């Protein structure tokens, strides 16, 4: 049918929506679940623009904006609503909307919709939407009576890297399903194509999750690389510094919600300086009150800091309760980008990877390009000498420890975005952190960097093969063996022996 006529037709339809819709709505509410399901399927098969508003508000879980009647949906109905809405949106004049709708239909389209889709496909002007619709149709056409159509459909599916396509083709290839030889062979080749595409997606996925885990380990360990690596304090309370950072994030989130709801999207950014300040503050306090008395007695710092961690944990427990607290991802940190049909990169993880690298660079600059850094290195290499040169060792120690703790706090902010925030948060990271630092070579920032990513990727490569539990055990064993070979870690410093 020519475009002009079609538009006119649409216009006419749009004139009488309200009545229709109200009726539909009431009918829908009244109906039983099964009836509702049938309704939605019918609507999906014969879309009517008048229902657009109803369906979109159903998707929101409402009957209509402002309508307070209770609406009980379950997953099945939600799925059907999405599907019906999509086929309605195909009527939209906005090509972007149509594209999205077509994509949805690729997943959910039912045989009953074939006729409708065919019509839209024929009438579709926009190239990308056209392609998307072709695919949506192809999924359904696999069972078409006409071998030619099936053949085309199979060929088309071969183009996609869609996991669904794979199963569809596999079912097609099952004995007794597809009789026509040509279609079978085509299906086999398509299946091979699809599998290859999927494999790529999987490998990339593994690599990414390895990187992501690495970045998390790095953030967790970085603070320790300073307090332990440079100051030689076996800081068992390091994990609690992470925990404080996470709780700081939580508090900031609450406050922003209460006093500046419009800025809620950016609360993590606000949390960063706060978390740093809190952890650094606590760190410096501890350094002044306890740790400074223990320099040169590393194993004693272990015990003292362990005590500190116990106290911090219990304090948090009494203040915020033993339960986890809710830290929500802001919109820009939730969801992810669909790189391939079977590969989604969550924004939160992407951001965390970037953030981790940023913090590393920052730390490196601080240690190697600033006066403080110079002093820190001086003090850690030869305390007395530094003191003689007029370096205020006490203050430097305090600042260095503060810096380490503060960085841990930053790590806490990141962790709060992917994990749970509870009093025991720190405990679960402490051992990994130590391993990263030791493996990287104590006092070696670069070492920690490599160690963290190395561990992360190794972990993720092992997990699919032998499972998470054995994987972790194996990693630990490997580390122990590695340390045997290179007791100083990846980055060793050689030098003349002094006695």
């Amino acid at each position, binding site marked *: 049918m020519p475009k002009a006529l079609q538009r006119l037709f649409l216009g006419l339809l749009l004139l009488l929506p309200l009545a229709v819709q109200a009726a539909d709505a009431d009918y829908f509410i009244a109906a039983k679940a099964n009836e509702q399901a049938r309704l939605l399927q019918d609507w999906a098969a014969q879309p009517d623009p008048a229902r657009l508003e109803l369906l979109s508000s159903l998707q929101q879980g409402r009957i209509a904006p402002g309508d307070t009647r209770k609406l009980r949906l379950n997953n099945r109905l939600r799925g059907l609503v999405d599907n019906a809405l999509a086929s309605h949106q195909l009527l939209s004049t906005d090509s972007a909307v149509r594209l999205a709708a077509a994509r949805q239909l690729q997943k959910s389209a039912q045989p009953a919709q074939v006729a409708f889709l065919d019509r839209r496909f024929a009438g579709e002007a926009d190239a990308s939407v056209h392609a998307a619709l072709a695919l949506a149709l192809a999924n359904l056409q696999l069972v078409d009576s006409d071998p030619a159509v099936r053949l085309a459909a199979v060929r088309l599916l071969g183009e996609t890297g869609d996991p669904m396509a794979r199963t569809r083709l596999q079912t097609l290839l099952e004995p007794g399903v597809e009789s026509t030889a040509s279609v079978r062979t085509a299906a086999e080749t398509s299946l091979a194509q699809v599998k290859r595409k999927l494999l790529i997606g999987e490998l990339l996925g593994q690599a990414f999750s390895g990187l992501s885990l690495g970045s998390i380990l790095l953030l967790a360990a970085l603070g320790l690389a300073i307090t332990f690596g440079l100051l030689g304090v*076996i800081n*068992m309370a390091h994990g609690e510094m992470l925990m404080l950072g996470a709780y700081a994030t939580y508090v900031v989130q609450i406050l922003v919600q209460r006093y500046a709801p419009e800025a809620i999207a950016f609360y993590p950014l606000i949390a960063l300086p706060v978390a740093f300040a809190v952890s650094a503050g606590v760190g410096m306090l501890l350094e002044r009150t*306890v740790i400074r*008395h*223990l320099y040169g*007695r*590393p*194993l*004693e*710092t*272990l*015990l*003292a800091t*362990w*005590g*500190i*961690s*116990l*106290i911090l*944990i*219990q304090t948090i427990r*009494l203040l915020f309760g033993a339960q986890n607290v809710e830290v929500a991802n802001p919109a820009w940190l939730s969801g992810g980008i669909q790189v391939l049909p079977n590969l989604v990169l969550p924004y939160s993880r992407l951001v965390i990877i970037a953030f981790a690298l940023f913090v590393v660079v920052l730390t490196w600059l601080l240690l190697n390009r600033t006066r403080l850094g110079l002093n820190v290195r001086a003090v850690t290499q030869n305390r007395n000498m530094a003191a003689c040169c007029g370096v205020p060792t006490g203050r430097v120690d305090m600042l260095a420890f503060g810096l380490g703790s503060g960085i841990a706090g930053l790590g806490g902010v990141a962790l709060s975005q992917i994990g749970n925030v509870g009093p025991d948060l720190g405990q679960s990271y402490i*051992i990994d952190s*130590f*391993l990263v630092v*030791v493996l990287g070579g*104590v006092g070696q920032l670069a070492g920690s960097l490599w160690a963290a990513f190395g561990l992360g990727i190794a972990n993720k490569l092992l997990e699919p093969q032998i499972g998470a*539990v*054995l994987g*972790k*055990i194996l990693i*630990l*064993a490997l*580390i*122990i*063996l590695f*340390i*045997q*070979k290179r*007791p100083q870690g990846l980055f060793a410093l050689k030098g003349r022996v002094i*006695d």
Partner: protein
Amino acid sequence: MNQPLLVTASQKAGPRWTLAIGAAVLLVLLALPLLSLLPAGHSLQVSAYTLTLVGKILCYAIVALALDLVWGYAGLLSLGHGLFFALGGYAMGMYLMREAAGDGLPAFMTFLSWSELPWYWAGTQHFAWALCLAMLAPGLLALVFGFFAFRSRIKGVYFSIMTQALTFAGMLLFFRNETGFGGNNGFTSFRRILGFEITAQSTRAVLFLLTVALLVASLYLGWRLARSKFGRVLTALRDAENRLMFCGYDPRGFKLFVWVLSAVLCGLAGALYVPQVGIINPSEMSPTNSIEAAVWVALGGRGTLIGPLLGAGLVNGMKSWFTVAFPEYWLFCLGALFILVTLYLPRGVVGLLKKRGEQ
């Protein structure tokens, strides 16, 4: 100046005193089980609760002593002694499970629907073998780990962290149900040991006496070591390993010996611990427990033989009391204790006593 030898310690605090106190304590410990046999309601009757509690603490005391041998004398802080302890416990636990299960499989295996026992359970129905296992398993593990560690001269913090990783790995391994040790639940609900009701008062008394015996034996052993040239070599090793090597001693042998010895002691302690407490499971291997053990030693006083015993007693006594009196706050006390001890009692309670003795 830390004098490692019990002898010198007692020299300063007055040998008569220490001996007298020691004897008194020993007498009490021997009396407890006997009193526990008195009819219930008797004014002097010692309740099973007290007996098991003290028995548990004694087992911990042995661990503390074992840890002190490697830390206090050889300067190797192990954060993995919980592993050896648990291994010993599991060995004994295997026997007790077999005893409880009779001819059938242990309960947890039946509802994982396993048809026969894994190979490493072989022979565990014999008490003797279980006992050997309780020493062999930790001993061998320590031997292998120690051999590599000392060969590449891992020491100080590195050693501590490696041992921590080791026990952590062990914990994860035993959490797995496929590993065949009851997973997270571990072993519980034991019935009989060598045919005796495990809950019978008399059995408890005997187990208790055995624990006391092991404690005394390991004390004597430690004392002999400390007196021997071996003990002096260890101290030398701790303070100047280089010098010792240039004197022609091979530190590795010495370290390895004391390391394995300590592990075996832990294993035995574990084996005695399980029947008294009635459960063994992977959480015994959690790094936390091992660190706590280090705290017992630090609190009591490193490099002395009585110190660790005092430490273990004090901390666990406190724990048992605090957790009832004011549950929410006992972690604070424990934490504060760690800090205060390291800050003000670098030589532990014994150090304090010694000071008294000197004045």
